[in-house]
């Protein structure tokens, strides 16, 4: 489903991504972790072309992200993305947030889009908030709406960039629950997170990044059992000790 082939990226002299490769099969859930600044956000944004890269290529469902002939907006409409800071559109109601992409990008009718939007809102348990504005919701609720907004486009896979790290602790689980459910339904997911409980529960593989490199790419059991690199061991012991 997602193939990342030897991508490298520089900001001027600074190399953010160094020869990163991995594959994510259909239905697979892959967790990406690593210290701050290691390039996790940059890597995940390369998957739907929100960030460009200088070398290598990313293939999503057979489409090359790096190719100049690829219409990136088309590709992105099929790849859902959830951000650390939710990024709901603050000038639109929750309903409008859920329908605008369906109407403007997929060309669905208003009615159809609304039905789909409300169904997903129901699914994340926020049906009663439909007419509110993002600013009136809690962080956890906003993030659940953001997940619903991405799902409304009927994506073939979902990217999450630290979806819970801007949340108060008591709201983290309501978001993780939605993600676990999604994973159990067989959604292909690439998730940047430090929530190791989530990784243990649903991940198939865990990728560990450091200084722009993929240092470890292992099955969940291998990663939590015997991480090979010292950096990963150190990192794990640090975050698991919290």
């Amino acid at each position: 489903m997602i193939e990342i082939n030897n991508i490298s990226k520089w900001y001027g002299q600074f190399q953010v991504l160094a020869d990163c490769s991995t594959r994510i099969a259909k239905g697979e859930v892959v967790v990406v972790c690593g210290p701050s600044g290691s390039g996790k956000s940059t890597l995940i944004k390369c998957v739907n072309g929100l960030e460009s890269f200088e070398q290598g290529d990313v293939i999503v469902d057979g489409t090359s992200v790096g190719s100049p002939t690829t219409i990136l907006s088309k590709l992105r409409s099929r790849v859902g993305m959830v951000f650390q800071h939710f990024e709901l559109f603050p000038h639109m109601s929750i309903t409008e947030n859920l329908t605008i992409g369906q109407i403007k990008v997929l060309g669905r009718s208003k009615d159809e889009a609304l039905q789909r939007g409300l169904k997903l809102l129901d699914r994340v348990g926020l049906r009663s908030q439909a007419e509110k504005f993002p600013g009136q919701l809690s962080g956890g609720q906003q993030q659940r709406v953001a997940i619903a907004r991405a799902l409304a486009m009927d994506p073939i896979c979902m990217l999450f960039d630290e979806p819970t790290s801007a949340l108060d602790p008591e709201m983290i689980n309501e978001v993780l629950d939605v993600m676990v459910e999604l994973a159990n339904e067989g959604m292909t997911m690439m998730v940047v997170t430090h929530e190791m409980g989530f990784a243990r529960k649903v991940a198939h593989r865990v990728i560990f990044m450091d200084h722009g490199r993929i240092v470890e790419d292992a099955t969940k059991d291998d990663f939590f059992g015997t991480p090979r690199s010292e950096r990963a061991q150190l990192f794990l012991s640090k975050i698991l000790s919290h």
Partner: protein
Amino acid sequence: MSFFTELDVSVIAPSLPFLWTGLKFTVTLTLIAMSGGIILGTLLALARLSPFSPLAMAASWYVNLMRSIPLLMVILWFFLIIPLITGYPMGAETSAIITFTAFEAAYYSEIMRAGIQSVSRGQVFAGQAIGMTYAQTMGHIVLPQAFRNMLPVLLTQTIILFQDTSLVYAIGAKDLLKAAEIAGKNYNRPVEMYIFAAVIYFVICFSLSRLVKHLQSRIAIIR
């Protein structure tokens, strides 16, 4: 003392219809220059922020040029030079409308540029992530928020524009000030007429600036 006792306000009532035609032009000029200026200014701002550098440079050049020349000179030049170039005479009113729109666009563009930059990059990513094109992201996500954030500043600029329209007096366009001058001459009461015109300018500007205050507090709440 004698200045006030000698004022004759009775000449104002009969000249109201005439002053009204002047005020109508002043308001029309303001509204057209505002809407045209904001639309053009937004396009200029987008051009300045575009990664295509010739376009960005041309827009920036235009904005800086307009902002470095006194408005009165632009009004005069445009009025005098355009007929020479095109060979057709142009009415003072038409000339004023075009000049003001083109001139104000430079100022509105700086406001809209700041507004666009006030919208976080994450919002752009979010728009693009659901498959919106650049134009859709701008049109549905960035510009509405930029416009909302900048509404008080845009209105403040419009108040300045409203006051500046009195400069068309120089090319003889019949705005409120010109109407007051003519009425003043007719009744031989220029002082009364100028004072009355000043009162109208004041009332309108004052009301608008109250509106700006109100909007500012509302936007503060939304945020």
